[in-house]
């Protein structure tokens, strides 16, 4: 039912309906933002990327054939934009861990400080991964997308997704142990 409804919406967007595009955007904007944030770990960048993605979607909606779902297509666009943005900020590894003011609005207690440290370690470990492994870990493990959907987004087999997932997670474990030891 949802898929049929979505196809109808997409058809109306192709016919020029702003209302239909608004519904689609409302449906997917938070997911787009979450995926973008998983890659860039910055609210402003995540917002820019998610908004840019929807603008591009609107501009190229006529070329969307529907072979993969709209969500898959959207995630792919967001991911590519986010990876480009990450490349532009190659000094991420040298960044200091910043307190996220939205989740820690006061002097952190011990467990909150640990949570912030963990968040920073995860971020750094992710950025040390090769691009494909990073994408798989972010999409499959951090955001819970199915193996099938990740394979559609990345245009590779489900076996490849799983292999990259295992390798990525194992590498991250090693990186994070190192970071904990070095920064403790």
């Amino acid at each position, binding site marked *: 039912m949802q898929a049929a409804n979505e196809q109808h919406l997409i058809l109306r967007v*192709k016919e020029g309906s*702003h*209302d239909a595009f*608004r519904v689609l*955007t*409302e449906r997917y*904007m*938070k*997911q787009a*933002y*979450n995926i973008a*944030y*998983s890659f860039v770990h910055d*609210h402003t960048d*995540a*917002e820019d990327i*998610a*908004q840019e993605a*929807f*603008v591009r979607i*609107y*501009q190229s909606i*006529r*070329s969307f054939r529907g072979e993969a779902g709209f969500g898959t297509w959207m995630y792919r666009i967001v991911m590519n934009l986010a990876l480009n943005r990450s490349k532009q900020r190659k000094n991420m590894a040298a960044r200091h861990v910043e307190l996220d003011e*939205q*989740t820690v609005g006061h002097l952190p207690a011990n467990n909150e400080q640990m949570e912030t440290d*963990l968040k920073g370690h*995860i971020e750094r*470990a992710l950025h040390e991964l090769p691009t494909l492994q990073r994408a798989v*870990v972010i999409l*499959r*493990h*951090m955001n*819970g997308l199915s193996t099938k959907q990740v394979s559609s987004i990345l245009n590779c087999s*489900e*076996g490849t997704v*799983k292999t990259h*997932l*295992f390798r990525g*997670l*194992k590498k*991250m*474990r090693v990186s*994070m*142990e190192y970071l904990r030891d070095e920064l403790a």
Partner: protein
Amino acid sequence: MSRHSQIRMLLYEYLTDDISDSDRTLVDEHVASCAKCREEIEELRAAIASVPRPQTQPSEAQTPEYWREFLFRVEQEIQQQSSQKPERASIFDELVGFVTFHKVPVAAVAGGLAVLALALILWRTEPLPNKTPMMAERAETQKPQHSSGGQVASPEVTQASARMGDYFRRSRMLLVGITNMRVDEDDPVDLGAERKVSRDLIHEARYLKQQPMDERSAKLVGDMEKILIELANMKEHGNAPNIDIIRSGIHQENLLFKIRMAESLYDTSRFQTAGYRNPEK
């Protein structure tokens, strides 16, 4: 695929409890007798534990107002980029899009495309038939004399368009103010300023309705009038339920979005306003 490889493909789902009963049994039976796979499971279990999934999504940190603004910026960006595109290119895009989307055989439309394109180009250079007969007649009487051969907007049409843009801008500011107004159940709000602006805009709308405008803008002015009359007739100190009625009307008709779109079409900076005086100033 070997049994090891087959089991390996199931391990992540096995460890995250996202596996069918039959596959779980398959894994359990295999690892009971395979040390290598048992080791693999433990290694992956430790890796998963060291990279915990986020407890909350980043989007949950944002307010509903943030997401309304997010939508608005997307729409605004699309509108800006659309207004920069040349019209002729979009006709070709529409033709290509139509043929591609409907998978019409290329051979069947090859001959017709040239004729269709010519017909469309000729059609698009004719005035758009979206005015009432009265508006069309007025537009006709207001048509300027062509001196150099190019089309020039008359001062009256330019002034009307500028006033239209101003009307939408002021309407938007009024509606945003109403939408964002903090209202306590027990504490009436002073609506003196909002009532005055509403009366001004109602008066302005009476002038604008006499001017040529597209159907969409005409409908929007009509929809706005209902809200403005409601607002103008409210008591000086409005209470929460009455303001909620206004907000509900704004939301139901999607007025803010429509006004923003209309406002960008009537951007006053695009017009020569030598003879136009803003009634507010």
